[in-house]
């Protein structure tokens, strides 16, 4: 699991790549995302376009990040879901709580609105 963090217009953008699964990947991702939300404005675009696989541990990371962001009156949106991750999100009906975008520009527009 690789993570990189950048900011644009005070919006945090975290790019994840690899497999977001139980073990070191989930531990590292959870810590990084919660740190970013804590330090930043609480508005996070999570780019999952290079996440090839996610298990329920990965889902828990997304939910933890969303709860932390909403606690700061912010939000977490998901960007660029791969088919496997989209299927997982839809099976668990989490599209009801996450806004999902395919283009970063659209996600930034939403976050800045």
């Amino acid at each position, binding site marked *: 699991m690789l993570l990189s963090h950048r900011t644009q217009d005070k919006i945090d953008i975290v790019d994840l790549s690899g*497999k977001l*699964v*139980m*073990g*070191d990947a989930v531990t590292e991702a959870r810590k990084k995302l919660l740190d970013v939300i804590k330090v930043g404005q609480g508005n996070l675009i999570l780019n999952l376009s290079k996440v090839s*696989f996610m*298990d*329920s*541990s990965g*889902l*828990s990371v997304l*939910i*933890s990040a*969303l*709860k932390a962001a*909403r606690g700061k009156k912010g939000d977490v949106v998901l960007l660029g879901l791969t*088919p*496997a991750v989209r*299927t*997982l999100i839809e*099976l*668990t*009906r*989490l599209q*009801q*709580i996450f806004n999902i975008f395919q283009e970063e520009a659209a996600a930034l527009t939403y976050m800045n609105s």
Partner: protein
Amino acid sequence: MKKISLNIDSNPETLDLADECIRALCVLTPLSSVEVDGVRQAVKEALNNVIIHSYQGQINCLIDLIVSFQDNDLVISIQDTGIGMDPKLLEMDRSAVVDIDPSDIEQIPNGGWGLYLIKELMDGISYSTTAGIHTLEMKKKF
């Protein structure tokens, strides 16, 4: 009946190997790529549950992964000798897990999605314990 048994450690870092084996074995069935991904997801969730709950995070315990082809069923059994699982968990209505109120995200569980996913992705699931060996059996029709 064709059957293969794999022995793996209860170490999350070794689960990739099991996943590759499952993927390769699924190629022998007419399952679609989406269905194969679902089987892989279900097996991953089941192995996670064994490691987290039955073996309580211990990484050097033994898990037997048995894959067989029975008529038109792909049957995957996962065996462990940890503390096991309450079989009543399989009978619970797991739809409550995804019965989400979007206006109240604090009520959304951070965990507990694994069994729900397994039941959604597979066509049959059972759990039994014999002589201290716990067996979760999952079936996928093809």
